[in-house]
């Protein structure tokens, strides 16, 4: 069942003639882990903001076509209605924090306060969320004092607490160190297992290779390809054409095929590669 549906969707920021998203037709299913890849300036961030309704509600501009998210037309629905259906996380941990939360608990409850949730219910949900992200020992700390990775986890929890069906992550680890990246991806993995629809825009295709069900390539403001993760990420020529560099493992297997050392499918993950090497070694 489609939960996000782009129907011939186009968008341009007011004052600019060129479209940042052009004729997007795409549907994302409920419970799916959906990856977005593409270059800088290809429209990926706008794609993510569109699902949250920031386009057109925060950024002025023109929409053609329509975008249906969990039954709501984003253009005609309010941001607050959309916020209980979609959670959006962007890249900078610092600006993800609202500033109004004096400690982690309050940061998490901010969205619920805005929705007028009764206090009892808030306390229950905050407790659950803090457990989920594993920040029990930090719950009374000022969120700005946390590390980037922990801040991103708080940001994710603070939108999840509003119980959205869909979580949109726009380069959530781009500004994190390796430890922070691992923390955040572990959390995303956990959420995917719980059945939340995840839409992840990232440069780290190694992670997509491991988790994503499907991947779309967005380039020059258009969808260039949508397909099963393996199908997209092992298509070296397609990736190259879209200025994306395939994983080292894919490149290695490709090279081995070229040198006639290996016959078989291209690799995508470390495990694929291990299997391939044992095959090659066996001869």
């Amino acid at each position, binding site marked *: 069942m489609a939960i996000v549906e782009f129907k011939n969707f186009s968008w341009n*920021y*007011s*004052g*600019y003639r060129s479209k940042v998203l052009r004729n997007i037709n795409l549907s994302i299913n409920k419970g799916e882990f959906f990856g977005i890849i593409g270059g800088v300036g290809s429209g990926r961030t706008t794609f993510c903001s569109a699902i949250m309704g920031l386009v057109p509600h*925060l*950024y*002025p501009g023109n929409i053609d076509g329509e975008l249906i998210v969990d039954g709501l037309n984003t253009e005609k629905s309010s941001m607050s209605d959309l916020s209980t259906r979609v959670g959006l996380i962007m890249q900078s941990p610092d600006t993800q924090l609202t*500033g109004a939360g004096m400690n982690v608990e309050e940061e998490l409850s901010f969205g619920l306060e805005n929705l007028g949730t009764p206090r009892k219910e808030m306390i229950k949900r905050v407790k659950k969320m803090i457990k989920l992200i594993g920040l029990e020992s930090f719950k009374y700390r000022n969120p700005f004092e946390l590390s980037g990775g922990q801040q991103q986890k708080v940001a994710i929890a603070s939108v999840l607490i509003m119980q959205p069906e869909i979580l949109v992550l726009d380069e959530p680890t781009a500004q994190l160190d390796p430890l922070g990246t691992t923390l955040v991806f572990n959390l995303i993995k956990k959420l995917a297992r719980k059945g939340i629809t995840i839409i992840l825009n990232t440069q780290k295709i190694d992670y997509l290779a491991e988790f994503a069900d499907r991947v779309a390539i967005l380039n020059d403001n258009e969808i260039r390809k949508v397909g099963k993760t393996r199908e997209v990420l092992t298509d070296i020529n397609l990736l190259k054409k879209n200025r994306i560099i395939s994983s080292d493992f894919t490149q290695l297997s490709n090279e081995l095929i070229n040198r006639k050392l290996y016959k078989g499918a291209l690799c995508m993950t470390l495990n694929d590669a291990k299997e391939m090497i044992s095959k090659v070694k066996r001869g």
Partner: protein
Amino acid sequence: MAKQDWITRIKAEFTTIAIVMIPIAIGINQAGRLIHEALGLPVWLDTIGTIFTAMLCGPWVAGVGGFFTNVVTAIAYGRATSVFFGLVQLGIGFLAGFFAWKGWWKKWWKVPLCGIALAATAALISAPIVVTVRGGVSGQGIDLVFAFFLATGQNFWTAIFASRFLIEILDKGIISTYIPWAAVKRLPEKYARMFKYTKKVR
């Protein structure tokens, strides 16, 4: 009916982006104060954030932002007196926003004129406050000017207003208005579009 209209219109000025701009503007005012200390010149620079916000978000948002600059100082450091001086910031924010609404910042040569008007307003509002709260004294270089005017036999109010105006004009005549104005001018189009008043300034 007409009153309702006013309130809705003012409320509409407080968009999410305008609201988040306020804490940041206050932060810029603070940064301006730090630069003032580092420069060691008699230019306060502590309204640059307020004036910047006025050019982006108009009089109401800038007025609130200006006033809260001092409310927050009071809450952070317990300086109760600072709240009274919030009225000066409020006046400056509101007036600068009014100029934006009128489109008076558009021409570069009008910027210093607006600056002079802001300086006069600041002096007018701050003079009675500084007298009631602090006996006319600021604890800064301006006190020498004040003392000089008093010593030369000027009327008390003339002395306080003249000394304030003199010092405000150094600050708002050029620097504190020109800096935010230039920043608004240089804003890339895609950012500028997100604020209501930029097209009346650029």
